[in-house]
Each structure stands twice: as C-alpha cells, then as structure tokens.
C-alpha cells in the first residue's frame, strides 16, 4: 500500500464532497423540499457535532459529567449575552470549577 496514493485519494474525495453543492449551484433546480431544509443546516449540523462532546463522557451519559453542566452554563450565558468570549470564558470557568469539586 502506498501512503501517498491513499492520501491523494482521501484528499480528492474530501475536496469533492466539500465542492459538491457549491459546484452544482446554478446548474440544476433543487426540489422545493431541499430548499426548505437549507436554513436549518447550521443549527442541525453544528448541534449534532457538539452535543456528544457535552452529553457523553467516554461514550456514556453520566449526570455527574462536569462538561454537561459547564456546557449548560455556557448555553445560558450565550442565550443571555450573545457574546462569544463571555460564553467561552464562562464555560471554561465552570468546567475548571466543577472538575475540582
């Protein structure tokens, strides 16, 4: 097995996946159900990406997981102040505090 060939194939495939809809735009008329989905992509994809980081520790849900509660603190601060640095700062502070309990 040649690692360079595998890397080239993986890089090409990754690039094509990222290019897919960007390249197709304007060359086809997407069905209406597809257009209705698009506004929800950021919320759906980024929530799915983040939730396991907060809710699972080593693959399991534990109510005592500090990251769960620190994440909830950050969610509360984000909803309240809509400020990125404040959200990150409060989440970190909560995690460091909870890990020492």
């Amino acid at each position, binding site marked *: 097995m040649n690692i360079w060939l595998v890397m080239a194939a993986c890089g090409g495939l990754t690039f094509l996946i990222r290019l897919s809809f960007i390249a197709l735009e304007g060359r086809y008329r997407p069905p209406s159900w597809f257009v209705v989905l698009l506004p929800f992509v950021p919320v759906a994809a980024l929530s799915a990406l983040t939730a396991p980081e907060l809710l699972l520790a080593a693959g399991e849900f534990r109510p005592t997981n500090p990251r769960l509660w620190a994440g909830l603190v*950050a969610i509360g601060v984000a909803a309240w102040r809509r400020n990125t640095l404040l959200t990150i700062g409060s989440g970190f502070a909560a995690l460091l505090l909870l890990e020492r309990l």
Partner: protein
Amino acid sequence: MAHNSAMTDHPASRSAAFWLGVRALLPMHLGVAPFGVIYGVVAMKSGIPPLAAVLMSSIVFAGSAQFLLAQLVSLGAPALMMVGAVGVVNLRHALYSASVAPLLARLPRRWKLLLSYLLTDEAYAAAIPHLLAAPANSVGHWILLGSGFALWAGWQLATLAGVVLGAQLPEGLPLDFALPLTFIAIVVPMLTDRVRIIVALAACALAVALSGLPYKLGLFIAALGALALGAVLSRRRRP
C-alpha cells in the same frame, strides 16, 4: 453586544470581511491546536513517514479524518477501506456545501474551488452566522476565506509541531473544551424561533442516540433527521 455584532456583520471592505472571519475562528484554535499536535504524535506512532504526516494536513485537511487515517494505517487496513472510511467521515461537509452554495453562486470558479478546499466544520461554523446576516454582501465570501485560512494556517502549524516536537502539552488543562464552547457561542444566538430550537434539540438527541455508529455516521444521520423535522415543522406553519 447586539450593536457591536450588527456593525461587524456587514463588513464594507474585503479586508474587514477577511479579518471578521479570522477573528470569528481564533477562539477555536485553543481547542484545534492541541488536537493538531496530538494528530502529529499519533501519526508518527502509526508509522506514517514524517513528510507524509505533515503534508496530509494540507492534502486531506480534515482533522477527524486524519486521526482515522493514522489509526487505520497502524492497523494495516486495506487502502480502499481507508478511502471509503474517510469519505464517510467527511459526508457532513456536503451539508455545509449545500448551505453555502446559494451564497457563493455568483463567484468565479477559482473562488468556489478555494472556498470548497477550506470548507471545514470550524471555518463553516465561524463564517455562517455572518454570511446569513448579510447574504447580499458583495464581499461576504472574504469572511469564509478569513475563517478558512485562519483554520488552515493554525492546523498546519499545530500538526507540524506534533510531528517535529512530539507531545509536550500541558496536562490537566481541558483546552479541547474550547471547540464545543465556541460552537455553543455560534449556535445559541441562531436559535431565534421555536422550530430552530426543536431542530437543535432533535439533532442533539439523535447525535447522542446514534453516537455508537462508526465513522461519525451518527452525526450525519442526526443532522439529516433534524433537518427533515425542521422542514416538516416549517411547512406546517407556512403552507
């Protein structure tokens, strides 16, 4: 703060848009940099030649896929399986592609190719609230270029440090938590109506329920399921 973001959401010049993208991504480096260093160390242990391990960060340029590749190389997996696994892990990027495609429709081809190459989880997340806030902004694509370039540069440096220096990370500092925290800071302000809140909660529940699936498939299926729910709910409200 609302006043501040209203100003920066409509950058008037290319450089203002570029730096807006860079700034939106910067906090993620707290989490991405250690992740990149660890990749470099893992890649070295897997037996990938140093030069290949370093260049993989620009040829493949996808964090979790690079970890997976290093793991599969050390297991001696067949080449076709490695390529297939990387393709599945990166399927979610097609969602980002669909999401930004209408916003990039008028750009020349070279821009579409460049921004596609840079379209990672982090760059998309950092740029998308600003892109959606001003979809008609003629310099909006510079925001995505800024966030994409900022992640690319940081990832190259971090993975290079991992390969060359090995693991020298401060123990006990949960820096990786910076990434989910930044995503929270991005997603929560987007939850502006009941349907979006339901979509977010459904995506969280599905992602956790399906987290046992290999190659991040659970994440992709969870996003698709939540999207379908969003489409059904929004159609019901506005027939």
